């Protein structure tokens, strides 16, 4: 059980890092879309 919990914690940390990177990727894509589409951006 000890090793299993250690492994799951490692997967969780990797997943959190993956999510943080995907959030940055999405943020950049929205930025690019806004700039290319010419839609009015608020605040």
């Amino acid at each position, binding site marked *: 059980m000890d090793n299993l919990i250690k492994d*799951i914690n490692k997967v969780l940390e990797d997943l959190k890092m993956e*999510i943080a990177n995907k959030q940055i990727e*999405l943020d950049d894509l929205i*930025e690019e*879309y806004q700039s290319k*589409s010419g839609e009015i951006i608020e*605040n």
Partner: protein
Amino acid sequence: MEYYEIELSTIGVYTYHYAFFDMFKKYNITTLGQVLDDNLMYGIMEKCRQKSRRELCSFISLMKYKYLNIPIPNDYLLDRKIATIEYTLDDTFGSLGFPELCIKDLKNQIQNQGNEILNITIKDFFKRLISQGQCRDATRKIIEIYLEASEKKNDLASNNDYDTLKELKIQLENLIKIRDDLDFEIKKFKESLSKLEERSIGDK
């Protein structure tokens, strides 16, 4: 009261110093339930500037932890030493969900603490601030969320009982859903960008 009915004005960490505050006002976002509605929030993020979007994204992560017990993706930043982030303090504290006023507060505290502060981690810096009781209320409330999350994470890493395993499984499922939702949004924007480019080539 159910969590989704809670008014944002009552939760302490929501302040008018957030860049997205005016957007929330305009679109009548007043409850926690609305902030935790992913579709609604992705819609808001599409409409706002990068600074507001980044702050909003981190704010949502904080709320998902506090009210849904979903791990905070950016909490790895807590283990960074102040010295290694000295030139990107704004980005780092922004990624942790602090509004501008709180970031100024944190940067002032770093300046006031002297050079030895540079060799400690953000987490230890936060602990020090709480014990000294020197930061403003909004800053302290966000810090307390991170310190609580960090303690919980340590507990989950050190226990090895069945309940811990069950808790980790739920966390894993929640994070996988967030990752899949992000993949969906990323795909959607990539397709929208391709269509824009096709249209632009067609116009030439």
